[in-house]
């Protein structure tokens, strides 16, 4: 049930100036738009080596935006596969720039990397998502989300049709990822999840999702490559990928009170700027993307509304828009039967290979025998019968 926080503020002109000229029930309506109470972010950069500088810069730019909009380090799991800031080849040590001419240093001095270097593996990533970590894992390396958490997952690196490469030695497939999200759903580890991926053929990674409340964005369609944005000649590498560059530009305009919604996010980096066609997927998402605020995922915005008046909230819930327009019926939630024994025992064995029908084989043999007897003479037939 949505939290009912209606604070009756005592005096102070503050409330007056905020609530001037707005309809109170409308504001109350807006208040219950989303049912999450906390925000988490899992930001992963999967490639190492100096020439993949841009992937680390991508992840750090999203980290910077997410932190700026309010998600604290304790709620961010940052996984960086390589250390670009202290790489021997970095002419500006301890910095990672996202804009050329060194305008913006996204490394800064309060970056907290949770998984670094060789710890960024497919196994660790999936364990973080599903929560199956050994008891010795520190809190900073865990995704301690609950059923009211909105999670932002950002992946970047080198990918292909249906897979994402981790560290030059392994891959995660879209099926694995979809199953991980299903595990998260069954354990109610998220309320809503926004998945952003900036790799080549990124759209293939969200094709297989089947859990509810997932929204996905990718920087390119299947068969397209995501391109890098600009090289910095002094550093000698490409600094950012195009999609994340324009995403960063978009996010720089977002502040915690901003009302920009997901439809604006879908418009980030059109084909003219990105060369590839960004894609998104919203069919598994329950709410209308137009009513989802950017800060629902990218920021950790505390819902505090100050009003001098009392609002009657006896109206039972606000009907949210659904596909098909059916009213949302509250069914008792139960866990899926993990081991349906009855089904397994009484299952008919599936015929794996196709065998030709039995009659066909019989007919074939009859034909062979007839040909044999015709060729070599009918007299042999008496030996059979």
């Amino acid at each position: 049930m949505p939290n009912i926080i209606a604070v009756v503020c005592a005096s102070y002109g503050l409330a007056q100036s905020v609530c001037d000229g707005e309809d109170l029930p409308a504001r109350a309506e807006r208040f219950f738009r989303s049912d999450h109470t906390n925000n988490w972010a899992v930001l992963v950069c999967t490639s190492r080596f100096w020439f993949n500088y841009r992937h680390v810069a991508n992840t750090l730019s999203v980290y910077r935006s997410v932190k700026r909009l309010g998600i604290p380090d304790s709620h961010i799991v940052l996984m960086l596969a390589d250390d670009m800031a202290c790489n021997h080849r970095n002419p500006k040590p301890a910095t990672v720039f996202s804009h050329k001419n060194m305008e913006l240093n996204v490394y800064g001095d309060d970056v907290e990397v949770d998984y670094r270097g060789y710890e960024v593996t497919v196994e660790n990533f999936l364990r973080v998502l599903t929560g199956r970590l050994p008891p010795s894992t520190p809190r900073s390396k865990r995704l301690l989300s609950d059923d009211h958490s909105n999670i932002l997952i950002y992946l970047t690196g080198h990918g292909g049709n249906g897979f994402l490469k981790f560290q030059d030695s392994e891959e995660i497939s879209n099926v694995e990822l979809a199953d991980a999200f299903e595990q998260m759903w069954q354990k109610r580890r998220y309320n809503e999840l926004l998945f952003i991926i900036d790799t080549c053929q990124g759209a293939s990674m969200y094709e297989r999702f089947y859990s509810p409340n997932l929204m996905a964005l990718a920087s390119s369609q299947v068969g397209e490559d995501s391109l890098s944005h600009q090289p910095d000649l002094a550093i000698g590498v490409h600094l950012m990928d195009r999609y994340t560059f324009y995403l960063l530009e978009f996010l720089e305009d977002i502040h915690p009170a901003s009302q920009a919604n997901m439809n604006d996010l879908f418009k980030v980096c059109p084909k003219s700027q990105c060369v590839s066609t960004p894609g998104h997927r919203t069919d598994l998402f329950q709410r209308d993307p137009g009513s989802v605020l950017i800060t629902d995922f990218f920021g950790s915005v505390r819902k505090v509304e100050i009003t001098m008046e009392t609002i009657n909230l006896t109206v039972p819930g606000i009907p949210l828009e659904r596909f098909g327009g059916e009213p949302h019926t509250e069914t008792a939630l139960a866990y899926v039967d993990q081991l349906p024994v009855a089904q397994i025992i009484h299952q008919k064995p599936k015929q794996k290979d196709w065998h030709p029908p039995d009659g066909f084989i019989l007919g074939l043999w009859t034909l062979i025998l007839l040909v044999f007897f015709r060729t070599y003479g009918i007299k042999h037939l008496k030996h059979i019968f």
Partner: protein
Amino acid sequence: MGLLSDPNRRRALTNLLTRLNTPICVLCYLAGVAWFMGLAFEPFTLRTYMSENAMGSTMVEERFPAGERALVTAREFGAHKRKSGAMPVDWLVKTMQSRGLEVYTQSFSRRLPFPDENKERYMVRGTNVYGILRAPRAPRTEALVLSAPCSPDNSNNQAVGLLLGLAQYFRSQIYWAKDIIFLVNEHDLIGMQAWLEAYHHTNITGMDWAPLHGRGGSIQAALSLELSSDVVTSLDLVLEGLNGQLPNLDLANLFYTFCQKQDILCTIQEKLQRSDWDSVSGYSQAVQTMALMVLKQASGRPWGDHGLFLRYHIESATIRGINSFRQYKTDTTTVGRLLEGMFRKLNNLLERLHQSYFFYLLPSLSRFVSIGYYMPAFGFLAVILLLRALDLWVQLGALPSVTEDGVGSRALPLQSSSPSLVSILTPVVISHLTGAALYTLPVLSQELAVQHFPVSETEAVVLTAIAIYTAGLALPHNTHRYSSIAKQGWRVLKLVAVLYLAVLLSCTALINFSLGFILALTLVPVAAFVTPHVPKVLSAVVMVLLAPGCTLLYCVFAFQELQEAPVSLIDGWMLFLSVISQGMLDHALYGSLVYPLLALFIYPCWLILWNILFWK
């Protein structure tokens, strides 16, 4: 029945093979030559591209400022060199130390097997000086090398000056992930060989060198610089190394990319790029460039100081500055920037260059022919030998059936096989002994020759070699005079010779395609047509004209023609003699394999064929 087991069908096939053998051989030969000529045709070649991801399309900003200061250093170096007569070791050590490098020296000495008349040296003693720029933050596991030779005359001063200028500039940068070794080697290739052998703790050629006191990590790439003028009009890239080994094509691509970026004219085989490769003149230039590369590769000698690095799997190339009469000149600062850019890109490498081709031919700097495209040219020539071998096998198999008609001649076919074994071993052994004599005697007997004839040691060696070569023509051919059925023994000998030649040429072509192809061009027709039944005098003349020695002579003339410096017959002959002496010296000093291959294997093979011609 099967195709080969049915006697009727087999006879039909073998008849076909025998009847059509000569036409197919001629066709294959023409196809091989045409394929080779067609390699340089522009639509059949591929454009070069950078394969290594780590060096990719990322450009760097080169900021080397000190070209003029490098020229001043070069003049100082030249003055000190003139004053001391040899390499100014103390001055170099002091200068490198003042630039912040770790400086070490290495002395070496070597006595050549006979005096080298081209470079006028016999007892060589020298010192290499090298300074190591340690990477500021990286572990000392990998290194890059920039080298410049110290030449006795007034050349290559600017190379050393630029090397020292770059050393000073590189020292102030913090982005080096590999150690950079700045090497000034004396006596060009001999000094380089001493340094490399000491660096890698090997001793291949029996040189006497002092061990190195300072070392970087394992060398990933090396560039050798030859610059003899203050301004250059073009930069030439030299790739061919020892035994025809080539560096990874990515190194050439890197050079070409940076030349285009700095807007410097870059050449290969000293031929300029052009825009109309598909015209007739464009095609002829491409063929000339490719033929020059083939000839250089076939000679098996390192054509720049970089050539010795390749043996240790270090990708290296030589950049030579050329100052010709052209209006557009490039100053030293730009050359320095080109080298800076190349080194920054090589710095980004995480593993040795291996993504691009190791075996290729370059008709121009922007186009290449890979091994998959040029090998069929040699394949056609090798097929001729196999067809001939099959033909001989068929003939040998058919012979007993001819003699079976006679009464009591059943014993004869059996007899004909055993004496022919002895009779074919004798020419083989004698040919190989002659080859061994050709390999060892010239150097060993130079003192004897000098005592009896008024020639210098080098001339004595070369003339002894030619004498032994010619004496091989007069070898006895009738060792089998006393065996009864020897008339057909030549077939067995020819079969052995043809198969031996096929194996030899194929193995050579795998390692050094150019050498294998050039030898095949002249030896395969000889091996194919020679029998005792062809007209003797004419065939003898043709065989001598297509012998390995004359092939070398033609190559010398062709090389001069392609370099656009044609020589007269006398000069050509003198050049030919010097080529022989250089070949022997290369083998003794650096381990080049061309001279032993020709003397110990190709020449005996040719002698066996000569023997077959005069079979009685």
